[in-house]
């Protein structure tokens, strides 16, 4: 049967392009649906990433070559800068060492006190150094890729920090790479407390490079500009007491029940090349099953008390 289009088909070239368009569009929509809802496709993704990885290795070459070339030419001015930096670092190291000694004493004391009070001892965590391979490939996301993957035993959900504070969390692991979602990613939540008075709250990313916000902070809450927010360690994912953000502005509008609190991350979320991956976090006891719907809030309170 010949259809009524202008051209007669001499050669059979398979289905028409409209049919193909519909087929592949539906296929992609299906894939997207599966990818957002379930985690079935992660193994496929890591298998395909092996195909891509040679290209990705090549991509970072120009940047690192450029850096190496820059390192070769150390000019007079740079030498001075290096000497200055060296002085600064050694001074910093001395003051840090003194503080570290104090810290050790305090840790010992803390452990003894905890033993006395029969509280579980906070476990130490180990760290692993990783380098950023590339940053924010997608305009819509605040994510970076680092050069440690399953080969270095990196696991999903591990926390990534730099020398000052929390940078983000590992959200996807490839054979040689892993993806870090930055704390500034939209709706990324970190449980924190105010260092000054231990007010607990949750910090959200805003999708902007240098902004975080505290939502649902009552207007009467004791929070002010320049307060440091540290992780509370309540969820068992983030170790307690690591700086995350600094409050820059608190707006209390009487028309709204919540204060509008703007913060900036303390860590160089978009600055450094090297990051630390925290591992071997202590396991918390299983969260109780939420069988009774509607009693969710009660459960949450219970979990908090357990900690």
């Amino acid at each position, binding site marked *: 049967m010949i259809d009524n289009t202008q051209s007669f088909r001499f050669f059979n070239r398979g289905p028409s392009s409209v049919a193909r368009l519909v087929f*592949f569009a539906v296929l*992609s929509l*299906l894939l997207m649906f599966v*990818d957002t809802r379930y985690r079935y496709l992660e193994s496929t*993704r890591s298998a395909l*990433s092996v195909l891509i990885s040679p290209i990705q290795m090549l991509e970072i070459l120009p940047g690192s070559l450029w850096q190496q070339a820059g390192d070769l030419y150390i000019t007079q001015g740079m030498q001075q800068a290096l000497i200055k930096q060296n002085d600064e670092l050694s001074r910093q190291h001395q003051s840090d060492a003194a503080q570290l000694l104090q810290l050790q004493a305090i840790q010992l004391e803390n452990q003894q006190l905890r033993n006395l009070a029969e509280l579980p001892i906070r476990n130490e965590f180990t760290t692993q150094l990783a380098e950023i391979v590339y940053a924010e*490939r997608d305009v819509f996301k605040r994510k970076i890729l680092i050069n440690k993957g399953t080969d270095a035993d990196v696991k999903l959900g591990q926390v990534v920090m730099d020398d000052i504070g929390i940078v983000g969390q590992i959200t996807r692991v490839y054979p040689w790479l892993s993806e870090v979602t930055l704390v500034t990613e939209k709706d990324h939540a970190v449980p924190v407390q105010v260092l000054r008075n231990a007010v607990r709250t949750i910090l959200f990313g805003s999708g902007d490079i240098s902004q975080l916000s505290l939502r649902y902070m009552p207007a009467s809450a004791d929070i002010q500009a320049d307060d440091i927010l540290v992780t509370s360690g309540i969820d068992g994912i983030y170790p307690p007491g690591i700086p995350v953000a600094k409050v820059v502005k608190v707006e209390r509008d009487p028309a709204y029940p919540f204060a509008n609190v703007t913060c900036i991350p303390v860590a160089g979320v978009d600055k450094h090349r090297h990051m630390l991956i925290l591992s071997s976090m202590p396991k918390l006891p299983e969260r109780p099953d939420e069988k009774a719907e509607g009693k969710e809030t009660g459960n949450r309170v219970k979990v908090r008390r357990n900690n």
Partner: protein
Amino acid sequence: MSYPSIQAKPEILGPVSNSFIALSVLVALFMNGLPWGGIWLMLRPDFVAVVMLYWCLHKPVRIGIGLTWAVGILADVADASLFGQHALAYTLLAFGGVVLHRRLQMFDLRQQTVQVFWIFAVTYAVYALVNWQINGYMVWLYFLGCLTSTLVWMPLSIMLQTMGQKRVDHERRHRERRP
């Protein structure tokens, strides 16, 4: 009334080897993956889209919707975006290329650029729309990339054309030398 478009295409394009097509796509993936940052990321033309559209326009029988979709999946893995997000956008791009290839081949490069812009615009819009649906916000500056992709269209298609041709000449000479 004159038909400048006919004069604009005096030569008949020779065959292009499959390896050249594959190489061009790999190079495009490489270019997309270079460490672009900040405003440069917004201004980055989508090289993969440009190259795939070029091949869909010029070799619609060999490079069609299916292969472009597969490249889109690779782009998804490389970009760590949602599985199928690039693939869906590139499927539309390839459809536009395959359906319009006769018409677009009649135009010279300058006229093509105007037409090609709309194909890129649709591709970018689909990608952004999916993102908006899932993440709930829009980055309007993202659409700058669709302008730069259009700007890159002309030099890139000249480049691909001459390089593909040269490779073919070389092969032909090779064949003649070996009777």
